[in-house]
């Protein structure tokens, strides 16, 4: 009995729908006579019989969804030989064994930046290219680097490290170590977004130190008096919103196609939030209309949603500026990547008690470092420094912030 199965009709089709049956049980068919029409994403195709014979059984009906390899029609063939021919299974070819590169070396090799010619040169001289220090743009290894590497006398510690590396890799190979994780889902989305931003936007990052001693003591006395806690982030967000009013260029977005820098009507601040699946940026909308307390409430609510992976689409849309408070984790400075197509992103780092000079005296103050990345197509360093100065002023002197509140 010849079993007619669904074959791959297009490139990479996995299933199809039975469109029309041209035959009934008992019908005699000739070689290449259409038996059944199947519709897939790509084509509707008549499937001809590979054998001549009598239809013995029709397993499917019109409208059925059939998977690749599923039997549709059974034909009693006139020629037994043909059956074996078309149902022949592929034997597995035995592979020649070849010397393998350790997987870890391959991984490192893929992260080396060098032109094919440079790589070839390294191979010619028997140099492991990943041991060469690149001096070109983005640490790219140049032909000169290879030459220098050749001329360099071999240092004994190099050899030691090389041996240890080999031992390590041999050890690792014997144990089932996970050498890769899938690049997909949120990770891939983040990747695409970051690449888009870095490719399109010429980033400049400006650093500043802000003295938050006064702000911290006010916050403490507020907590003490009211018994409620207030997150610093809420104050930061308010300070940003006020500053954006003075420097609306950072609340704009560049529409290159139309050749316009578009100023946004409202200030909606996205908060870069860490979640298990990866970075996510929920947005506090219309910050102008919110009190610091209300910002705090929304901040808490959105952070929780982000961490429990329950953000709705609307929570993530409409941002005009992004802030990132990485202070609780640590760090001195950073060069944050702008949340495309916004114009600026402001990162707040760890607050540290630092000896500083005030009125010619060394005193200990609480200093907060900030890093402000902006789109240099849209604004200049002058604007960025002025904007950051305004944020600094509001946070260093809370009275200024109070006065600016509407």
């Amino acid at each position: 009995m010849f079993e007619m199965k669904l074959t791959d009709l297009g490139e990479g089709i996995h299933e199809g729908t039975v469109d029309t049956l041209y035959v009934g049980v008992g019908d005699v068919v000739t070689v290449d006579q259409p038996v059944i029409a199947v519709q897939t994403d790509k084509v509707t195709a008549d499937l001809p019989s590979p054998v001549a014979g009598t239809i013995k059984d029709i397993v499917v009906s019109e409208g059925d969804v059939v998977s690749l390899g599923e039997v549709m029609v059974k034909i009693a063939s006139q020629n037994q030989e043909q059956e074996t021919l078309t149902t022949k299974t592929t034997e597995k070819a035995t592979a020649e064994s070849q010397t393998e590169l350790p997987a870890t070396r391959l991984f490192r090799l893929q992260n080396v930046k060098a032109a094919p010619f440079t790589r070839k040169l390294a191979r010619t001289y028997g140099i492991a290219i990943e041991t060469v220090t690149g001096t070109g743009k983005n640490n790219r290894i140049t032909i000169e680097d290879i030459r220098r590497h050749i001329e360099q006398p071999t240092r004994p510690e190099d050899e030691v490290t090389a041996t240890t590396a080999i031992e390590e890799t041999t050890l690792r190979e014997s144990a089932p170590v996970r050498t890769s994780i899938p690049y997909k889902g949120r990770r891939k989305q983040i990747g695409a977004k970051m690449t888009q931003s870095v490719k399109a936007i010429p980033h400049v990052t400006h650093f500043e130190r802000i003295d938050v001693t006064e702000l911290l003591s006010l916050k403490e006395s507020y907590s003490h008096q009211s018994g409620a806690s207030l997150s610093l982030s809420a104050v930061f967000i308010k300070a940003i919103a006020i500053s954006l009013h003075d420097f609306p260029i950072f609340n704009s977005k560049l529409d290159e196609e139309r050749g316009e820098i578009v100023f946004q009507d409202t200030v909606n601040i996205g908060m870069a939030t860490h979640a298990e699946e990866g970075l996510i940026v929920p947005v506090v909308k219309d910050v102008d209309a919110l009190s610091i307390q209300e910002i705090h409430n929304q901040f808490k609510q959105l952070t929780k949603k982000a961490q429990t992976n329950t953000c709705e689409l609307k929570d993530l849309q409409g941002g005009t500026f992004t802030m990132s408070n990485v202070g609780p984790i640590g760090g001195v400075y950073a060069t944050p990547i702008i949340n495309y197509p916004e114009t600026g992103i402001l990162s707040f780092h760890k607050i540290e008690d630092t000896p500083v000079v005030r009125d010619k005296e060394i005193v200990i103050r609480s200093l907060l470092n900030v890093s402000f990345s902006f789109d240099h197509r849209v604004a200049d360093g002058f604007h960025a420094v002025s904007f950051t100065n305004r944020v600094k002023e509001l946070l260093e002197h809370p009275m200024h912030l109070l006065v600016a509140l509407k």
Partner: protein
Amino acid sequence: MTTSLSSYLDQLERMDHDYPLLRMIQPDGSKAFTEEEYDVTLLLSFYKQMLRARMFDRKAINLQRQGRIGTYAPFEGQEAAQIGSASALQQGDWMFPTYRDHAATMTYGHSLETIFRYWKGRIDGCVPPAGLNILPPSVPIATQLLHAVGASWAERLKGQDRVAIAYFGDGATSEGDFHEGLNFGSAFNTPTIFFCQNNHFAISVPIHKQMKSRTIAQKAFAYDIEGIRVDGNDVLAVYKVMAYAVEKARRGDGPTLIEAVTWRYGAHTTADDPTKYRDQSINEERRDEDCLLRLERFLRQEGVFDEQQIEDATHEIAMEIDEAVERFERAEEPNPHDMFDHVFEDQTPSLREQHQQFQKEVTS
């Protein structure tokens, strides 16, 4: 003479290069040139070759639908253009086909079995019979034009009179390689025949969306080489034009661009559905200009169309095809490791890595 620039420009006649469509046999089967001698024996042989190609093509589609070969690019409708052109070549000449030019390669000498092997993804499906310079089909569009220019230029430098033909479609003329090939061929006077089968569709893009030029042949004008437009469904006209271009190239008078205007009835490949981008009822009209039908009409008018003879030929071809199918399906299992060879002389590190990964897959 005119007195002002604007009137000069107004009077300036638009360059109107006429590239008329050459026909030897009208669609109704009558002779286009009444005083010409028509070689009936040659035409009968063309008819059988076209029949063979068409039957092969239909069989290949069936094999694909039965899961016995991979994705296939059908050529039904283009037999005359391919067979007429390939028939004008001599042994030693170079043929650079695409994936749709099997009527040309089988006319020049490829066995049907070899072509089936190609579509089974086998490397031996690329190997021509000894002494025939047939290159493996070019799947990237228009790259083979440059190869053909290079090969024919090399023959010239070696003092040989061999020529090269590059097959391509209308879509290929939008590629940079097409223009580079024509320019180089023109500048170095290479013995190259640029043979375009204009079937009016680049996969799904109709020609009017692809170019503003009224013809493809006119693109030769810019390179100061001859451009000839011929009815691609008229096997005799194609043969004559091609013979002219080959002879010219052989004697050292440079390249020619031939536009054979034709039509493919079917899909671009078995993986697409032409009804989604083309009104298939046009096929009905086109069938009236079909290359086989036209030649049949001519041969009948000449009184040499012997139905019994054609039936016998059909039977013979069917047997030849069946044997070819049987042989390629009985062939030894292909070596899957072949796919990692032949692009680079030595495997590149990334290719080696892929090969190793593959080895693990097939042995586990």
